[in-house]
């Protein structure tokens, strides 16, 4: 460990280049297992190792990329430890004292919750490799070409549970700068460096030009050295073959850019050769590396998203709803092992503005350890907000931390010795941040002074495990103003001290303040405004409360003394509940109806219609002079692409609601002429797609047509039968597949044979104008055009 750390301070470390292509050049046949082949021909892999060392590599990788149980079993090899040990020994012998990195690649499987491979099984698989490589005396470890953050975690945990050797982890990113699993570089960095990776970076899948950008993105957040091992450009196609065309000169020209971006360790991946490494070494040997710009970071992550907490001017909101306390339905679902409500709560809280989600499953009759694990797994797949693990069960916390595919926040660690003794080591092992809860075996301290002492005591213990102030968040400890009115000023003092003196993030569980009080929402908002004015960083709350707090902010600035704080909060408990927002009085009712159709406001249009009717507008005027022009305007905007499909439909749906209200009131004969026209719609036989047809039906009804919708997969004979029954002139047919659109011809042909005088309009994704004309039918590309054609055909 010391050797590489010393090197990192002095120079840019050079890794080796591609091995696979070199092996093939030296005779390894296509399709052979490189690891097994190298054991049969050790002199060849040794030659490649030496070539890279001769051109200046400081570190060579063992040829053990695929030497795991899953990959080797495909070739009938079972002695995994021996294979790894022997490959490690070959590299050690070739290295002659230079550094050997034990290479661990992906298994090809995805690890739960993203795949079928159980997490602990993955750790075991990698652990097997690690043991073999350790017995060869390797110097450092590299976990590379990882596309799944959970697999990378499993491999890193496997290494760290067996050795404290320097370990690098490099992920592979696609063109969208995310891994196949959807992890971006900063998120991967936050997770992996906190989990104990000694260096983090990227390899493969892209050339140096694209990879420099990733390094630059990561550098501000990294407290470990950064690694880059790009391909020799992007694969190109020539005469039907793909190849990497970036030569050594061009490849090495990016060396300086990498160093300037912050890379500390450089090498080459697919398509590179000893020439590439030689040229790269030459370009960077005199350059001074930029050491990590920071020592720690206040940040959390999920598999796909990270949140940086330090120096954030905005309050971070922790959604509190995933907590069965007081929620019978949620508690019941959790007991039954169902997760739909949890998923819904996650979606809703995210929509409302939560940045993190608190997850608490503690309730009677539940196996908290396994339930918490399952919920963490479900949320890790269906939601991308980082999670806060909220439990008092240390076994549950441990299992949750192990399976969680990111950097979690533990809620919380108090000064109770049995908690501190168990939770601090766990938080350290899994790289979690944690909330310090200032309570002890003696109970809840009422004063700021007592709370401060506990906080400092817990932090002092935490420092022994390597934690810094960036890794903690202090809970101000909110008690209900109903039962402990004197405590709210003390909580605010804690927050203020954290912000100004102790210089750490702070948090409160907001809803505690109003427990047992009326107007809870108002009290919460008021207290939050007070806390924000003191520098609060995070809040566990209903996200809606944060928005309300903004409105109280100005009043809080004047509230300083303890008595004033208590009075301020008590005042909110007496305020009557706010009335519903008044509608825009200044806007005339008919304009509101017009705008509602234009803007697709189906929620309010019924109310506007009632308002218009009550102020004297006739139903006929509303339909003909307001709504129809509005929907026609929508059609125009759609034609110009100023509106797109969802807006068109929203307007149509708003119109439909209005029309349903007004239709019974309309005078007979006062409807649009089209009302008398019946149109039959159907998706043809064999085709089950009907959404386009349903949109057309909606549009036609809005324009006064009577629509007979026969549904989907409708036989030709049935369509003909309905035409005869309704004596219909107009028929609309829809098909989405080339194999089913031929049935349109059958329908039209049958209608001709039967002597039916009707006009056909056809549409659907595969239908074209020329096909329509070949059938003697009109073509409608969309609902707007369908209405236009229907109107012209019915004149």
């Amino acid at each position, binding site marked *: 460990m010391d050797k590489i750390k010393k090197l990192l301070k002095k120079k840019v470390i050079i890794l080796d280049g591609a091995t*696979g*292509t070199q092996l*093939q050049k030296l005779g390894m046949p*296509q*399709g052979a297992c*490189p690891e097994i082949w190298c054991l049969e021909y050790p002199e060849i892999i040794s030659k490649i190792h030496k070539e890279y060392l001769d051109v200046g590599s400081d570190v060579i990788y063992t040829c053990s*990329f*695929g030497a795991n149980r899953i990959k080797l079993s495909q070739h009938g090899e079972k002695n995994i430890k021996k294979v790894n040990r022997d490959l490690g020994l070959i590299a050690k012998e070739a290295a002659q004292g230079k550094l050997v990195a034990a290479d661990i690649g992906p298994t*090809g499987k*995805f690890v739960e*919750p*993203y*795949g*079928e491979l159980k997490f602990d099984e993955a750790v075991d698989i990698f652990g097997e490799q690690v043991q073999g490589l350790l017995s060869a005396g390797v110097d450092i470890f590299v976990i590379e*070409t990882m*596309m*799944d953050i959970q697999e990378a975690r499993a491999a890193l945990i496997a290494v760290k549970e067996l050795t404290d050797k320097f370990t690098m982890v490099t992920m*592979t990113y696609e063109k969208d700068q995310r891994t*196949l699993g*959807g992890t971006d570089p900063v998120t991967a960095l936050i997770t992996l460096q906190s989990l104990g990776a000694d260096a983090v970076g990227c390899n*493969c*899948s892209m050339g140096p030009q694209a990879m420099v950008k990733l390094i630059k993105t990561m550098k501000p957040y990294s407290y470990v050295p950064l690694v880059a091992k790009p391909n020799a450009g992007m*694969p190109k196609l020539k005469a*039907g*073959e*793909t*190849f*990497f065309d970036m030569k050594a000169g061009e490849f090495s020209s990016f060396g300086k850019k990498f160093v300037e971006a912050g890379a500390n360790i450089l090498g080459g991946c*697919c398509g590179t050769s000893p020439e590439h490494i030689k040229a790269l070494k030459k370009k960077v040997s005199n350059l001074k590396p930029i050491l990590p710009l920071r020592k720690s970071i206040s940040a959390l992550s999920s598999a*796909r998203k990270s949140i940086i907490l330090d120096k954030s001017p905005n309050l971070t909101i922790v959604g509190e709803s995933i907590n069965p306390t007081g929620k019978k339905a949620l508690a019941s679902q959790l007991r039954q092992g169902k997760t739909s409500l949890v*998923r*819904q709560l996650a979606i809703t809280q*995210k*929509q409302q503005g939560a940045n993190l989600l608190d997850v608490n499953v503690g309730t009677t009759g539940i196996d908290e350890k396994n339930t918490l694990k399952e919920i963490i797994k479900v949320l890790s*797949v*269906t939601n991308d907000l980082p999670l806060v693990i909220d439990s008092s069960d240390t076994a549950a916390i441990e299992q949750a931390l192990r399976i969680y595919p990111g950097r979690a926040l533990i809620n919380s660690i108090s000064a109770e010795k049995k908690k501190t003794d168990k939770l601090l080591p766990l938080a350290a092992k899994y790289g979690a941040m944690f909330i310090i809860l200032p309570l002890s075996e003696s109970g809840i301290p009422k004063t700021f002074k007592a709370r401060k002492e506990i906080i400092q005591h817990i932090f002092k213990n935490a420092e022994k495990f390597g934690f810094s102030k960036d890794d903690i968040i202090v809970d101000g400890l909110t008690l209900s103003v109903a039962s402990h009115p004197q405590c709210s000023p003390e909580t605010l003092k804690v927050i203020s001290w954290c912000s100004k003196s102790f210089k750490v993030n702070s948090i409160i569980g907001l809803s505690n303040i109003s427990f047992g009080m009326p107007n809870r929402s108002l009290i919460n908002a008021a207290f939050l405004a007070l806390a924000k004015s003191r520098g609060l960083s995070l809040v566990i709350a209903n996200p809606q409360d944060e928005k309300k707090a903004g409105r109280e902010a100005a009043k809080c600035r004047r509230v300083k003394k303890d008595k004033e704080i208590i009075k301020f909060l008590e005042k909110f408990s007496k305020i009557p509940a706010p009335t519903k927002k008044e509608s825009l009085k200044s806007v005339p009712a008919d304009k509101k109806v017009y705008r509602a159709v234009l*803007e*697709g406001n189906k929620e309010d249009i019924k109310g506007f219609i009632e308002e218009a009717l009550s102020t004297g507008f006739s139903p006929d005027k509303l339909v003909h002079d307001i709504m129809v022009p509005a929907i026609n305007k929508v059609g125009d*905007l759609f034609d*110009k*692409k*100023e*509106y*797109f*499909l*969802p*807006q068109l*439909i929203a307007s149509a*749906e708003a119109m439909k609601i209005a029309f349903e209200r007004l239709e019974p009131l309309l005078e007979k004969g006062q409807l649009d002429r089209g009302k008398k026209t019946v149109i039959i719609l159907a998706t043809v036989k*064999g085709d*089950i797609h*009907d*959404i386009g047809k*349903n*949109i057309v039906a*909606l549009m036609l009804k809005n324009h006064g047509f009577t629509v007979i919708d026969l549904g989907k997969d409708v036989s030709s004979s049935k369509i003909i039968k309905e035409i005869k029954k309704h004596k219909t002139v107009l028929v609309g047919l829809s098909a989405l*597949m*080339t*194999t*089913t659109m031929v049935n349109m011809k059958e329908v039209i042909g049958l209608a001709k044979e039967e002597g039916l005088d009707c006009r056909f309009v056809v549409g659907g994704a595969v239908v074209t104008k020329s096909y329509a004309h070949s059938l003697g039918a009109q073509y409608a590309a969309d609902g707007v055009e369908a209405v236009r054609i229907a109107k012209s055909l019915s004149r």
Partner: protein
Amino acid sequence: MQVNFFDPLNVAIPVKRVYTRLGYAQGKTKLGPDQKDKIDRFIEEAKGLLNLKGAAGLLTIEEIEARQILLSEKVCFRSKALAELLKGCPQVLLMAATSGDKIIQAIQQDSRGENIMRAVVFDAVASETTDAGLDWITNYFNSQLSRKNMRLTQRRFSAGYGDFSLENQETIHKILELDKIGVSLTFEYLLIPEKTVTAVCGVKDQ
């Protein structure tokens, strides 16, 4: 042949592609913040309904003729265009991705008239994300193959297009054991759930 199952298929919803599919034209379409919020909420809701799964496997090409490709596992595809694509390839990748049934049911329910706007958004999300699922599988196999100095062809074929007839869905369904990821086949060779796509592409040496 070893079939790789991806359950779940961990693909982010390609939001830009969803908007494009719905007809959004950058620089032309005027979308107010309230309507955008609504559409984005529907997209988020769709995420909770998607149950994206995939399956893929490699077959060895035993013989290619002008209009016919003979593969291992006694598979035979008849298509001139496909034979052209696979010329020079030692292997072929068969793949499939499905959105699952839950989102289809939601689309059908909404499109009966209750909430057609949400139905079209769900429909676009399901279509684009399922296609993105195939992209994901392609990227996955490319990353596996690149270590062996091989790569997939950029083009891929689906049954029902060109001269690669829809009947080939039956073979693909059987070989990839798609029933294991909840996909069935109708007598008309339609895959159910309806947002299920299959594709074939070649493996080339780099």
